[in-house]
C-alpha cells in the first residue's frame, strides 16, 4: 500500500453486479456509486433483496461461483479491486479491509479455539511469532471489553454467548488494524440490549483505531446512531444518499419518504397517526420496470417521464448538504410535505369487559440432570421456571403486548394459552372458562376457534404441501363454522377479502406467495373461527419494514372490526408503543413491569424497562435518548439468579438484597405494577429515557391539527 495516498479510501463508480442462474442473468446491483473517506462511517440501508449485502461482498471480491462484476470499478486506496489478482486480493482481505458478519456463531469455526482463530490474523498478515500473536489477541479481546480474555482465548465458540461471539468477531476484524471495516447486519441476530452494547463498542473502536465503516442494515434507527452519511437502496439501485441529518430531516426520494411512513416513531399513534404502508410489492430482479424501479409504487409517478429511460443520480441543491443526491427526476417538483398520504384518523377503541384473565400462572419444566455431580448428590430433578407468577387481564378489543428478549418465557406463555402445554400452577381464564390445565386435545371446537394464533416466521406458518384454500378451509371445517363445501369455499373467499388478497389465491401453494402474503394468509387462518382472542407471536419481526407496516395495519383493522382481544408478543418496543394498549414486560420468565402503554413508557420505570427503552434505536433525529448499556449476558433460564432475575445486570442494583430476595410487587397506580426493591418514589425521580425536542413536538401537533 502506498503510504502517501491521500485520496478517498474507497471509491465505487457505476458498479454493476449480476448473478447467473438457470433463468439467465439477474442484475443484483445496477449503477452503484459511493465514496468513503478515511475514518468516515457510511450506512447502506434498504429492504431485503435491495442489493446492499451484495455491495459489501463485491468490495471483498467474494461473489460465489455464479456472481460477477459486470461493470464499473471499486477503487480501494486508488487501486482497482476488480483488477487485482488472487494473491494481491488475499493480502488485502483481513488486513486492510475486514468484515463483521450477521451471525457470529456461524462466522466462527466450531472446531477451533478462539485463540487459534484470532492469532491467525497477525501471523498471516504481519508475520509475527506465536507469542506475539497471543499477546495481541489477548489485548484486542480486552479492547472489545470481554471480561477474562485468557479464558475466552481457550474457549470454543459455542462455549460463549452470542454477544461475546460477536465481540470475538469484531476483535478478529480489528486485529490487523484495517482501514475499512464492512459490517453486514452485525446486530440483527442479537437481542436488543446486547445489540446496544455492540453498537456502542463499534462506534468507540472505530474512533480509537481510526477505521472507516461501511455499515449495512435494514434498521434506519441504527443508522442514525452510527453513521455520518447513509445511502438508501431500492431494488438494486441507490435511490438517495446524503448526510444522516439531511436524509432523516429532508428526504427527497418518494421511497425514502415511504420508509419513514412505515416506521412506528414515538409520535405515531394507531388512532391519530397510523402507519402508511407503501402500496404494491418490490419487483423481482428480472421483472424490474422500465425507468424508475419505484415508479409503479410511487404516488408521484409521471407517465412518459418516470418510465422513459434510465434515471441518474441528481444532486440535491435545496439544502446545505453537498453530498445529498437522489435518483428521482421529479424531486424538485413534488410537495415533500405531502409525500406520505395523510391517513384517516380513527376513533379510539373502546375496551370492553375482561376476556382473558391470567392469575399467578406458573409453568415449570422438569428436567433430569445427568451430570456426575447431580448423580452423586442425588439432586437430579431440576425445574426450569419458564413462567413464574404471571398475572394480567386483557379486555375485549384490547391489545396487550408482552415484551421481552429471548429466554424471557413469552413463547412458553403462548404455548400454555394455546394448550400445547399445561400450567403447573395458577389459572388462565378465557371467556369464563379455565383453560390453563386444558390440553388442546381436550378443548371443544368452539374453544379452539375462539383462541387462535398468528405465527412468527412467514415461511413456516403455512404448510408448503397444501394449497391456501385447503389450509383455510380445513380450519373452517375443524371449528365447525361451516361444513358444506360450497359454503366453506365462500367463507374462504370472504377471509381472503378480509386480508385484502385476490380470491385467485385459493389455489396457490405457499411457495408462490411473498412473505407478506403468507403472513396475511396466516392472519386469515387465525380469524377463520371468529376468535375472541388472537395471539400474535412476533408477527412482523421477520418482515421488511414496508411489508410489516401493511401487515400491522391489516391486523389492527381486523381486530378493530371483530372486537378481538389481541396478545401481541414482541421484542420490538417501537411497534409495541405504537399498537399496544397495555404492556407486560418480562425477563427470565417473570413480569418486571406491567401497566398501560403510557405508564410503562414513562417514569417511574422498572430498571429493565428503562434499559430496554434506551436500547431500541429510533429513526428520528429529533428524539434524544439517555444511553444505558447493560453489562453482562442474559443469565441461563436453567440457572436463574435466586433473588431478582435482573440483579446480575441491573445498573440500579441496591446491593445484597437484590441478589437474595425476590422483589416486592409495587403498585404505582391501579394495575401499574413494578417488581423492584427500589421504592416507587426513588424510581419516580428517574428522568425519562426518550425526550422529543419541544419545538418538534409542537410542529407535529400543528401538522396534526391542520
Amino acid at each position, binding site marked *: 500500500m502506498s503510504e502517501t495516498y491521500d485520496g478517498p479510501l474507497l471509491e465505487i463508480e457505476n458498479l454493476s453486479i449480476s448473478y447467473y442462474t438457470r433463468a439467465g442473468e439477474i442484475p443484483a446491483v445496477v449503477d452503484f456509486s459511493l465514496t468513503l473517506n478515511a475514518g468516515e462511517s457510511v450506512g447502506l440501508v434498504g429492504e431485503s433483496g435491495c442489493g446492499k449485502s451484495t455491495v459489501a461482498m463485491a468490495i471483498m471480491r467474494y461473489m460465489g461461483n455464479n456472481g460477477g462484476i459486470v461493470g464499473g470499478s471499486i477503487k480501494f486506496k486508488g487501486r482497482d479491486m476488480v483488477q487485482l489478482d488472487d494473491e494481491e486480493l488475499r493480502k488485502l482481505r483481513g488486513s486492510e479491509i475486514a468484515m463483521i458478519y450477521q451471525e457470529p456463531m456461524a462466522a466462527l469455526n466450531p472446531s477451533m479455539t478462539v485463540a487459534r482463530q484470532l492469532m491467525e490474523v497477525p501471523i498471516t498478515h504481519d508475520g509475527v511469532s506465536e507469542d506475539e500473536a497471543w499477546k495481541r489477541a489477548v489485548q484486542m479481546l480486552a479492547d472489545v471489553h470481554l471480561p477474562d480474555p485468557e479464558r475466552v482465548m481457550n474457549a470454543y465458540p459455542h462455549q460463549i454467548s452470542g454477544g461475546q461471539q460477536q465481540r470475538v468477531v469484531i476483535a478478529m476484524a480489528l486485529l490487523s488494524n484495517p482501514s475499512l471495516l464492512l459490517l453486514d447486519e452485525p446486530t440483527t441476530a442479537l437481542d436488543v440490549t446486547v445489540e446496544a452494547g455492540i453498537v456502542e463498542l463499534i462506534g468507540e473502536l472505530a474512533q480509537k483505531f481510526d477505521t472507516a465503516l461501511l455499515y449495512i442494515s435494514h434498521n434506519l434507527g441504527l443508522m442514525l446512531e452510527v453513521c455520518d452519511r447513509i445511502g438508501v437502496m431500492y431494488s438494486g439501485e441507490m435511490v438517495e444518499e446524503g448526510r444522516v441529518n439531511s436524509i432523516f430531516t429532508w428526504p427527497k426520494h418518494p421511497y425514502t419518504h415511504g420508509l419513514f411512513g412505515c416506521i412506528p416513531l414515538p409520535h405515531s399513534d394507531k388512532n391519530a397517526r397510523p402507519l402508511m404502508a407503501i402500496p404494491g410489492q418490490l419487483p423481482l430482479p428480472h421483472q424490474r420496470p422500465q425507468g424508475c424501479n419505484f415508479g409503479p409504487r410511487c404516488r408521484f409517478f409521471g407517465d412518459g417521464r418516470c418510465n422513459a429511460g434510465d434515471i441518474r443520480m441528481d444532486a440535491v441543491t435545496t439544502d446545505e448538504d453537498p453530498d445529498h443526491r437522489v435518483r428521482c427526476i421529479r424531486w424538485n417538483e413534488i410537495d415533500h410535505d405531502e409525500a406520505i398520504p395523510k391517513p384517516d384518523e380513527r376513533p379510539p377503541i373502546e375496551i370492553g369487559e375482561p376476556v382473558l384473565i391470567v392469575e399467578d400462572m406458573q409453568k415449570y419444566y422438569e428436567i433430569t440432570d445427568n451430570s456426575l455431580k447431580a448423580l452423586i448428590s442425588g439432586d437430579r430433578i431440576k425445574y426450569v421456571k419458564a413462567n413464574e407468577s404471571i398475572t394480567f387481564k386483557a379486555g375485549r378489543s384490547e391489545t396487550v403486548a408482552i415484551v421481552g428478549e429471548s429466554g424471557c418465557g413469552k413463547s412458553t406463555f403462548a404455548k400454555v394459552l394455546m394448550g400445547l402445554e399445561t400450567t403447573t400452577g395458577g389459572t388462565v381464564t378465557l371467556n369464563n372458562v379455565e383453560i390453563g390445565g386444558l390440553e388442546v386435545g381436550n378443548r371443544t371446537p368452539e374453544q379452539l376457534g375462539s383462541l387462535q394464533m398468528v405465527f412468527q416466521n412467514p415461511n413456516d406458518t403455512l404448510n408448503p*404441501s397444501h394449497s391456501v384454500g385447503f389450509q383455510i378451509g380445513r380450519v373452517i371445517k375443524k371449528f365447525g363454522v361451516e361444513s358444506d363445501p360450497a359454503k366453506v369455499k365462500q367463507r374462504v373467499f370472504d377471509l381472503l377479502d378480509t386480508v385484502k388478497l385476490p380470491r385467485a389465491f385459493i389455489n396457490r401453494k405457499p411457495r408462490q406467495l411473498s412473505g407478506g402474503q403468507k403472513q396475511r394468509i396466516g392472519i386469515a387462518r387465525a380469524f377463520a373461527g371468529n376468535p375472541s382472542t388472537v395471539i400474535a407471536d412476533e408477527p412482523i419481526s421477520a418482515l421488511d419494514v414496508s411489508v410489516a407496516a401493511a401487515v400491522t395495519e391489516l391486523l389492527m383493522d381486523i381486530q378493530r372490526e371483530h372486537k378481538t382481544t389481541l396478545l401481541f408478543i414482541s421484542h420490538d418496543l417501537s411497534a409495541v408503543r405504537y399498537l399496544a394498549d397495555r404492556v407486560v414486560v418480562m425477563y427470565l420468565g417473570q413480569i418486571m413491569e406491567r401497566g398501560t402503554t403510557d405508564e410503562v413508557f414513562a417514569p417511574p420505570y422498572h430498571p429493565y424497562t428503562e434499559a430496554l427503552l434506551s436500547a431500541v434505536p429510533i429513526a428520528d433525529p429529533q428524539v434524544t435518548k439517555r444511553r444505558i448499556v447493560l453489562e453482562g449476558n442474559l443469565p441461563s433460564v436453567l440457572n436463574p439468579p435466586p433473588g431478582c432475575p435482573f440483579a446480575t445486570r441491573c445498573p440500579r442494583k441496591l446491593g445484597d438484597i437484590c441478589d437474595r430476595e425476590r422483589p416486592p410487587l409495587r403498585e404505582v397506580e391501579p394495575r401499574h405494577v413494578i417488581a423492584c426493591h427500589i421504592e416507587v418514589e426513588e424510581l419516580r425521580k428517574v428522568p425519562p429515557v426518550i425526550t422529543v425536542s419541544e419545538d418538534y413536538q409542537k410542529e407535529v401537533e400543528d401538522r396534526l391539527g391542520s
Partner: protein
Amino acid sequence: MSEMTQETVRAPSFGDKVVRVLKAIALMRESPVGMVGAGLVLFWVIMALIAPFAAPYDPNATMIPFQLPGTVAPDGGTFWFGTDLLGRDILSRVMWGAQTVLFYAPLATFCAYTVGIGMGLLAGYKMGWWDTILSRVADIVLSFPVMVLYVIVIAKFGASGINIVIAITFASAPAIMRIVRGLTLDVRARDYIGAAQTRGEGAWFIMLAEILPNVRGPLIVDACLRFGYVTITIGVLGFLGLGLPPPDPDWGGMINENRSMALSFPHMTVIPCIAISSLVLGFNLLADGLREISIKD
C-alpha cells in the same frame, strides 16, 4: 395486487396436473447423469415387460449347453448371449430375470418404506417413550451386520420370495425410520404443525397429511438408492444360493449356477453381472440426478 378479482376461481384441472408432471420430467434434462440413470432403469423395465413376448426361448428349456454368444441354434435362431451349462438360452433368462428382480425389489422396498415411515413418523412426532423404544429397537437391528442377518434368517426359514421380502423389510426399515425420524423432528418444529395442533387435529392427521408430504423429497432420493441396494441384496442372496428357488431365472442365481464354469466360459457369469450392475447403476444415477435437481430448486 389488493384488487378483488371476482371472476370464478377454478380448481386446477387434470390437464394442469399433466403439465406439471411434464415440467418435472423436463427438469431432469438439467442433469445428464440423471438422464442416463433414468434411461437404464427404463430399459430394464421395458425388458421385463416384453420378456413374455420377445424372449427368443423358454428360459427354462434345456437345449445345447456351453454355447458361446452368437452361436446358431438348432432351430435356426441365434443364442445371442450363448447358453449356460444346462443348455438354457442366456438372453431369455436375462430378460425373464429382469422381471423377477423388478418385481421383488420394488415390493421389498415398498414394504420396508411402509414400516420405516410409520416407525419414523411415530418416533419423530410423538417423541418421548415412543421415540426411545423405537430408536432402541432400530439401533439393535442395525447393529447386526446385514448380510449375516440375511444369511442366518433365510437359511433358517428357507429361501422364498416372501421370506426375502420379509428379511429385507426387517433389516431396512430401521434405517428408513432413522431418516424419517430426523426429517420429522425438523418439520414438527415448524409453525404450521403448531397451527395444526392448535386447531385440534389428531396425531395421525398431522403425521400423514401435514408432515409426510413435506419430507417426501429426500425420501424419493433415498428410495432410488435403496432400490439399487435391494437389487444387489437379491442378487447376492441368489449368488449365495439363498435366492428364489430354481429353476426360475434370477440374475444372482444364474451366476451361482454357472460359477463352476466361470473360468472356462466367462460369458455365463459376466452377462448376468452386467445386467445387475447396469440396473443398479441406473437407480444410483437416477438418485444422484434427482438430488442434484432438488438442491438447485
